[in-house]
């Protein structure tokens, strides 16, 4: 059966949460629902499953790479071409901490930044489901339903306070 993507727009969080609960009752699973909003709304406020993010893991990976790079610069490069000066150590330990710290932080921050891009698929300029009212503070609930059931879902969500419920198509932002 052909499916269509519908968009229900809400003014507040409470009716949006009720609508998602209703969608669950009507057999729409979470993987067929997507919520977009102009401010961050916690998943548990809407009764949605927690979102997975790799950003913190990528940050840790970046920190480890930065640490290793710092160790190499400090304690590796002097050995590649040894120049001993005045009996001083080839690689003194305390000053090395500074470089290691800076590189650890730099790579951690870069990895965090790139993590947002990777996890969010940024940049993405393809047509997508969206309405500009979202950045005006509205909450949009997208859900996929069989074409024949459109009216049933429209009625159900309108009763719960949706400002509008209508089929939607991907568009250029």
């Amino acid at each position: 059966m052909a499916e269509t993507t519908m968009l229900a727009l809400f003014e507040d969080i409470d009716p949006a949460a009720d609508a998602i609960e209703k969608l669950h009752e009507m057999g729409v699973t979470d993987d067929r629902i997507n919520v977009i909003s102009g401010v961050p709304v916690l998943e548990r406020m809407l009764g949605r499953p927690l979102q997975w993010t790799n950003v913190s893991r990528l940050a840790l990976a970046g920190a480890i790479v930065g640490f290793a790079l710092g160790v190499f610069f400090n304690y590796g490069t002097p050995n590649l071409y040894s120049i001993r000066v005045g009996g001083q150590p080839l690689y003194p330990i305390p000053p090395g901490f500074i470089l290691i710290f800076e590189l650890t932080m730099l790579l951690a921050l870069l990895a965090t930044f790139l993590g947002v891009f990777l996890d969010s698929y940024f940049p993405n300029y393809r047509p997508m489901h969206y309405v500009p009212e979202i950045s005006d503070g509205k909450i949009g609930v997208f859900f996929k339903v069989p074409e024949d059931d459109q009216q049933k879902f429209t009625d159900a969500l309108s009763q719960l306070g949706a400002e509008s419920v209508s089929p939607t198509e991907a568009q250029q932002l």
Partner: protein
Amino acid sequence: MAVVSNPYSSDRKADALDHHDEHDPRQQLMFDPRPRGEMNRMVMESMLTTSWRFWVVFGILSVLVAVCFFYAWGYMIAEGLYVAGVNRPAYWGIFLVNTVFWIGISHAGTFISAILRVFKAEFRRPFTRAAELMTTFGLIQAGASIFMHLGRVWLAYWMIPIPNVRQLWPNFHSPLMWDLLAITTYVLGSTMYLFLPLIPDLAMARDRSTGWRKTFYKILALGFRGTEGEWVHLRTAMNIFAFAIIPVMFSVHTIVSWDFAMAMRPGWSSTVFGPYFVVGALHSGMGAVAIVLAVMRATMIHMDYFIRAEHFDALGKLMLIVSMAWAYFFFNDYLVQWYGGDRWTDQLFHYHEAGPMAWMFFGMLIVNIAIPWLTLWNRRFRQNPWLLALVGLLINVGMYFERYIIIPISLTINRMPFTWRLYEPGIEIWLTIGTFAMFLLFYMIASRLIPLVPVWEVQEGQMAHSLRKVGKVHVPAVSEME
């Protein structure tokens, strides 16, 4: 919970107001919510509304940048460093004064955005971006000042960590390499930290623009829609940044201080220089934020809604505390060296206090300590934008004096009296004017292109605030939204 919260929408409205005649919570931005669409419109109008005065100032600053920055720098490169005033014994002059000054200015952005975010200080919300921009633009000027100081700027790549033709790597144990890496880390980190929370506001601007602006915001918004996943990734990243950028901020100015403190020179060799420099950076940075906010509020429409007396009040308190901390570190640094009784340090201190530049030394103490302490204890004074901006301006003059005293004036007195000579700046003065003009010009351009108020953060804050009845009164309460 409603997206647009209104603490006065309940039937307790009249009761609440009865008890808050003198201190109406609606004087605070968090208790005076407006619909998100209206706030978006206000921020967009503030970007799009430009008076003729803007273009006059823009034109003057553009000419100053062209002449005092690019032409003067090009002239110095063509002629050599002799056109600058640096000479024996003061080989470090205004270029490094400017470097330290601009890095100091940059600290306020991180302090306000990261530290206040970590501690959930709600008053930060409307002006985090204006402060973060100071960080990025200040660091650009700091970087330019270092390159000016280099003289043969085309050889700057020697510090990039790659081996040269003889397979020799840079000396990573040199404070100059620490500087390079610390400032690079800070520039990249603070720019990314500026950009991440900007994405939702760029998406908002994209939805409300046409023509070239639409294309501009569309590219920068990266396709952001506000899905649950996007918010989670963004929020996680912002939390990591907020915690990670704080030690980076402290490290940068500490490392800058080590450029001096690692040398066995009178006036420089001090174990307290690290924290003393960090506090000094915050001192000048806070003052600069006060100036920026006062100018924003006065020159951009609708900004009086977002930036209020409460924000200047909070900023004034911070400035007072930082002034006290700066006085503590200054006295600590001064007393320990004075008590040490080193002959050359005594000579230097005598030169500071009774030499030809003594006016600068005492001027520094007056504007960095006396004026903030005498004025900022007063709430009415703190809440007046222009008075606070004036104190901020004086503090910045004082902090510039401080760096001038530490660098070229302290270099005048060394262990070889036959070399003593007072530093007299040459082309540095023009280049300094150029960096200041460029900083202001960047800010003016940003004010036309970037939403200076993070609207989504303001709305998030307004959602989290409510009035809670305790006994006979309603008191502000903040919910945990994260």
